[in-house]
């Protein structure tokens, strides 16, 4: 077992799959020669050559379209969109093309591809380079959506995504690239649609994703240490497919639920999961589900303001404590 950064885990995960399957190709802006603007793809060009690892122009629609056309005709493309905010300049492929082609053609067309992208805030890039946009794609029927929080999950979920026969949107978190974690040697293949209980607990369930997962965990430790409140923390990991079983079982045990989302308030995954929980486990709940989110604002650039905007360990802990006290 070696320590690996989340950043290096990206290259490791891609390399594992490119090694396994010669039909896996990789395209994006500055991903080849430069190794990616976040240095997540260093070494791939050298290892797999310029036919499989291709730099593109600043043409996100062309990137997405090319990936789709290749996927329809036998390849398994991985496409990088540098920042998830740029989904907005190629959203037609994400919303109208990838996810609808199979259905519209009664199963004739397949679209097995992965779009990986740097998501999220905490690096002071401002309103157009810091968004958490999981909900932009979660809401589209036909896509799968994952967001790993650890280096090991990066490798394993990358493998699962590349091997998946459907279009998968793979969110890496900018704020986690420098983080480290143990990653076993050898091939790692995870399973889409599986949440993970990262801390068992009995007083409340806290659901979190990506950068919010370690924060939720830290908040739970704090609540335990300072207030004797014992929270179960679940890293949701995969929004589509969604592991409602793990979530509902947990809520069944704890009777209270909190979601911690980095995206702004309206129409996020937290609202979706809360609605599912209340619809299916209403009478198991002892009190109202509470969503902890970034407020309804574009993200500011200045560090003090950005820190204030995102759910912090303290805000999570305080919110949970107050809700459980009342």
């Amino acid at each position, binding site marked *: 077992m070696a320590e690996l950064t989340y950043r290096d885990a990206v290259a490791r995960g891609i390399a594992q799959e490119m090694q396994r399957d010669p039909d896996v190709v990789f395209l994006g802006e500055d991903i080849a020669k430069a190794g990616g603007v976040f240095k997540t793809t260093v070494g791939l060009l050298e290892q797999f050559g310029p036919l499989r690892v291709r730099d593109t122009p600043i*043409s996100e629609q062309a990137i997405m379209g090319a990936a789709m*056309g290749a996927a329809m005709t036998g*390849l398994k493309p991985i496409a990088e969109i540098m920042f998830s905010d740029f989904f907005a300049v190629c959203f037609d492929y994400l919303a*109208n093309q990838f996810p609808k082609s*199979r259905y519209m053609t009664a*199963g004739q*067309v397949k679209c*097995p591809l992965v779009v990986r992208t740097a998501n999220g805030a905490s690096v002071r890039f401002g309103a157009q380079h810091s968004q958490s946009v999981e909900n932009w794609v979660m809401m589209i029927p036909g896509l799968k959506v994952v967001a790993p929080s650890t280096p090991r999950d990066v490798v394993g979920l990358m493998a699962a995504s590349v091997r998946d026969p459907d279009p998968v949107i793979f969110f890496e978190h900018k704020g986690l690239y420098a983080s480290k974690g143990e990653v076993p040697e050898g091939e790692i293949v995870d399973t889409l649609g599986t949440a993970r209980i990262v801390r068992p607990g009995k007083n409340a369930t806290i659901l979190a994703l990506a950068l919010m997962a370690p924060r939720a965990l830290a908040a739970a430790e704090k609540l335990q240490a300072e207030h004797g409140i014992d929270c179960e923390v679940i890293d949701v990991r995969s929004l589509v*497919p969604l592991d409602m079983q793990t979530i509902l079982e947990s809520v069944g045990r704890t009777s209270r639920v909190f979601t911690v989302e980095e995206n702004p308030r309206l129409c996020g995954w937290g609202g979706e999961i809360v609605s599912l929980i209340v619809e299916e486990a209403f009478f198991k709940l002892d009190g109202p589900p509470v969503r902890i989110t970034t407020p309804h604002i574009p993200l500011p650039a200045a560090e003090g303001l950005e820190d204030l905007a995102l759910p912090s360990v303290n805000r999570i802990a305080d919110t949970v404590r107050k809700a459980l006290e009342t």
Partner: protein
Amino acid sequence: MATQTQAGKIPARPNDDIGREVRLRMYRTQIEIREAEQRAYDLFLQNLVKGTSHLSLGQEAVAAGFAAAMQPGDLTFCTYRGHAHTLARGASVEKVLGELMGRDNGLLRGKGGSMHLTSVEHGVMGSYAIVGAHIPIACGAAWSAQYKGRKDVTVCFFGDGTTNIGAFHEGLNLAVIWNLPVIFVCENNLYMEYTPIGEVTAVSHPAAGRAGAYGLECPIVDGQDADAVYRAAQAAIEKARAGGGPSLIECETYRYSGHSRADPAKYRPDGELDRWKQRDPIKLYRSRLLELGIGEKALDNIDREARRFVDEATEKCKAAPPPPADILLTDVYADGGSSWRN
């Protein structure tokens, strides 16, 4: 299959570079499209075709000329105005009309509708209803062939109006820098929906005027003449197949009916339609064939057969059931279903 001409060599017409067999095939294709599209229109008037539909009446020569020049395995990407291209590559009239009528025998079992005709077994990789979206997708299919060393060529059809959308620009640039085996075919029928293309385009030829921006040349082809289309198609396909990279072709043509079924096309200047009908692609091609010594009887036979074929297909479609309710939830994901949770 199509007689091969040498890449790049586009002789003057009429002569015998194309050959009787290919010409008859192109005639047949045009007639079939004409009959099927006319039938689609009739069925719409009978309220048997719901939703929208976009006909290629008047534009048959483009579809026929390209299809004749393409080989099995070559790929077609087209727009919502895609009935013609889908039929030209060999999809059955029954399945096309069935789809328009929302029947279970349709190409897509009614799930896609008129704007999304697809027949992967015939190389028709889809009809795309968001203007321009398929241009980069066609690049991807061509990239795939290039990467795998396959010899198939991708042909991507679109309208004049499509040249003003961003995806056009991004796709053409990518195709050129990656030297992809893809042919972009602009069917310039003079109008976007209702607006004349000249009023919204900075250059007078929407495709040819843009070719230089991608280091391409762009022949302007008489889209009413299947032979001219065939020759241009041949040249571009040979070039792409030989690794010579992408081409852009502008075919000048005209649609007889409105943009879609809702459109009576009143915005067209008086006489314009009549002028174009004088150069009707089928009339033109028929005289050509007669001139070349193909007997009237052979052509009449083709006409009759096509009509019979379309009649039979119509009857089958009328008798076909609507899609069963259970397919509402199938084929969202590769596991066959639409489940997004456990």
